[in-house]
């Protein structure tokens, strides 16, 4: 048995270590279990992203492997929920981030991300190739535009035919009893397409009219999920769910053609008048231990080889104008002539209020 003195000394010592444990150095041995958090200048860098970003086995992951082969920088993907959740986490960890680079803050959340200083400003190499209308949104390198797309109502052509009803043609139609219990949307508090769709309805019905519209949607049995993945893969009929109308992307139909074997026509369609233009951004997370490697990854992610994989893996269009789109995209993707967009300032001034009001109205 250990003597009392030594026991007390050991206990007190551990307590003091516990109370004053500030440096990571001595704890490295025990900290390997949380590798992502360990300060290690030469280790892999962590790409924090939303959950619809594939973590393995797709061409986009192959591209990241190519980046590693080229630069010696390994990239680990950390899924941090949906865009809203991911941004909130980034705000709460600002200065001591969960990773080094973040992918996927969209234009409706961008101003919030900038004002809470989660990104370290960086003007990427190769920015010239990016569409001017996107770089204009971030004139001082606050973030880097990486893709764009349109958030629109998608419908399952076969399922609607089975029900014997025509696809909806407008936002108004969605409140028609014909489409009762057929629509699934995302929670705008947690999901970026969800917020985009809410903004589309505000654009359509105005600051004082959208509430009535959403009340009608609720009466018509709209379903709400926290994120896009859950809505599309969980509830959309084409992916095995039971609702043939879903808030998704204008580029979803070509995706289904490419991955549905032997399809020559898109099995899903897009209601063009409902589309809202969404631009997504990546950035170096402020407080990263490896800013140089992080910047290199940003450069790479807007380069042609990586951007070329964006459409087929993320359902969106490349921001790099040099990339040539796959034939299926040219044939089946929808880039509406006049997608809705709302001034970032207006969104920024009202976002939280809209979300609060929406929450009270729709999910109580």
């Amino acid at each position, binding site marked *: 048995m250990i003597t009392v003195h030594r026991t007390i000394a050991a206990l007190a010592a551990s307590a003091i270590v516990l109370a004053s444990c500030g440096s990571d150095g001595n704890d490295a041995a025990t900290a390997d279990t949380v590798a992502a958090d360990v300060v290690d200048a030469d280790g892999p860098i962590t790409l924090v992203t939303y959950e619809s970003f594939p*973590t393995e*086995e797709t061409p986009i992951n192959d591209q990241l492997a190519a980046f590693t082969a080229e630069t010696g920088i390994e990239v680990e993907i950390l899924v941090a929920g949906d865009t809203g959740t991911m941004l909130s*986490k980034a705000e709460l960890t600002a200065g001591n981030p*969960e990773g080094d680079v973040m992918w996927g803050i969209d234009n409706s959340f961008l101003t919030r991300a900038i004002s809470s200083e989660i990104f370290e400003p960086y003007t990427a190499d190769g920015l010239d190739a990016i569409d001017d209308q996107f770089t204009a949104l971030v004139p001082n390198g606050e973030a880097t535009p990486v893709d764009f797309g349109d958030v629109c109502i998608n419908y399952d052509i076969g399922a609607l035919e089975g029900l014997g009803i025509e696809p909806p043609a407008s936002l108004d139609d969605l409140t028609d009893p014909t489409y009762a219990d057929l629509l699934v949307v995302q929670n705008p508090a947690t999901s970026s397409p969800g917020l985009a769709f809410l903004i589309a309805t505000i654009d359509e019905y105005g600051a004082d009219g959208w509430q009535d519209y959403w009340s009608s949607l609720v009466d018509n049995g709209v379903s709400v999920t926290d994120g896009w993945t*859950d809505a599309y893969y969980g509830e959309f009929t084409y992916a095995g769910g039971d609702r043939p109308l879903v808030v998704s992307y204008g580029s979803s139909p070509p995706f289904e053609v490419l991955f549905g074997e032997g399809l020559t026509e898109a099995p899903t369609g897009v209601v063009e008048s409902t589309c809202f233009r969404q631009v997504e951004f990546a950035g170096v997370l402020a407080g990263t231990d490896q800013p140089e490697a992080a910047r290199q990854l940003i450069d790479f992610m807007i380069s042609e080889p990586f951007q070329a994989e964006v459409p087929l893996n993320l359902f969106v269009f490349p921001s790099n104008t040099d990339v040539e789109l796959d034939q299926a995209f040219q044939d089946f993707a929808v880039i509406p002539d006049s997608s809705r967009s709302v001034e970032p300032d207006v969104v920024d001034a009202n976002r939280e209020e809209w979300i609060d009001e929406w929450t009270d109205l729709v999910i109580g």
Partner: protein
Amino acid sequence: MALIGAPTIGLLLFYVWPFVNLIVEAVDIESTRETLGRERTRSIIWFTTWQAVASTLSTLVVGLAPAWVIARFEFTGRRFLSSLLTAVFVLPTVVMGAAFLALLPDSLDRTVWGVIGAHVVFNLAVVVRTVGAVWEHLPTDMEAAASTLGASPFVVFKEITLPLIRPALTAAAAIVFLFTFTSFGVIRVLGAPGTRTIEVEVWRRATQLGQVDQAAVLALLQLGVLAAVAVWSSVAARRHSRALELRPLSRPQRPRTKAERRAIPLIAGVTAVVAVAPLAALVISSVSSPTGWTLSGWTGLDSAEIRPGINVGVDPVAALTNSVQTAAWATAFATIIGGLASLGIAAAGRAGRVLDAGLMLPVGTSAVTVGFGMLITFDRSPFDWRATWWIVPVGHALVAVPFVVRTTLSVLRSVDNDLSAAAATLGASPTRAWREVVVPHLWRPLAVGSALAAAISLGEFGATSFLSRSGGETLPIAIEQLLGRTGSLLQTKGYALSVVLAAVTIALVMVVDRTGDVAGARRREGNDGRR
């Protein structure tokens, strides 16, 4: 000095400072006005209150019968029933939510009735133990006298028994109210998205909407209510307490009358079913799919894919590993700090009492508040500890230390002082006397305290919701995430993880219950011997 010093520093650093910081930094007039001015805030306060009152009253009503049966009668399985209820009480909140999600028909899922039901089953043990402890010591002669004078059983209960157990009932009510008022895990899993207690709203504002200031206002508001209830309960306890000649434990009796022989097995049986049914439903759901029986929830635990390459961002197996490691560290911290604190409290006079009360505070305030305060306090160099491996275990330890202290202190105080004096007389140095007399008694309560701390850490959800980082999810976090999904396979995995967590917790509690009883019996023997 180290005995008192280390726990005090830990408490000041990891609880008091974050807490003060939360109030000073985050709360201002503007955010207070905005938060309280919102109609939804008022409806959340109203909901939080009425569901807590409803849950408390229901628990009292439902819990009286089993409390009576267990306190007064001897029957087969009596101890088991009591242990079972305790085990259910210590179950992690998300597991309880999951169990009710599994148990209830779809029409009741995600409704407030499901939530209240879960609260009732959860807290039955509080009533059974708190009220039962008084009930089993109540002298039966007054009741017998009333009966002889012609009072019906109902009148006997109302006029004699109820006034006597009323202080215990009040105490139980206060505890159940505090638990259900701050309900978080159950609501996150079982409630609809719009079903929000203040606690859930604090979490949502801070982590989902990024409105730290408004979340802090709500946290403070909740704390005000908790403090008021605590004060009310102690005042009420004093007012209603009356001098009672509590008999030394008269052994519970076998049921005698015909009515008793019929009622006792019925009440005991129904209670057991109520406690076991949610757990059974949990197991069944972990091997069910819409198309039939399946083990895929268990065999596929190494991933949480929605479709190839796309996953929900929680890895069930990693969560299991994280939880075990976190619990190991939290238990070590809690045992060391709690052990030191107990020795210090037992040795020191007033300073000890202050520390004792101080260490209880993290349990009294909500876990969400603890995690929230730590997250927004330790975010600046040189105190930027958000990414350290030990921040989650420390958060858990804060909640667990009081349990280590309670178990250890009660034993320390019962150690016979005469023995130490005798040792000193025989020439032992103070340390030697302490080592030979006190230390041998310490191991058992410390072991019990450690087991409790481990159980608490494994199930901790509120503080972890703030402190854990992406990739570092613990079991309760993973369970909540998986069960919140629409895919049936993901839900099955959530149920499977819940079964694992429930099994480990119940095993720990059963061990504690046995050991605790043994220790208690020893103490009683000792007391009797001296008398």
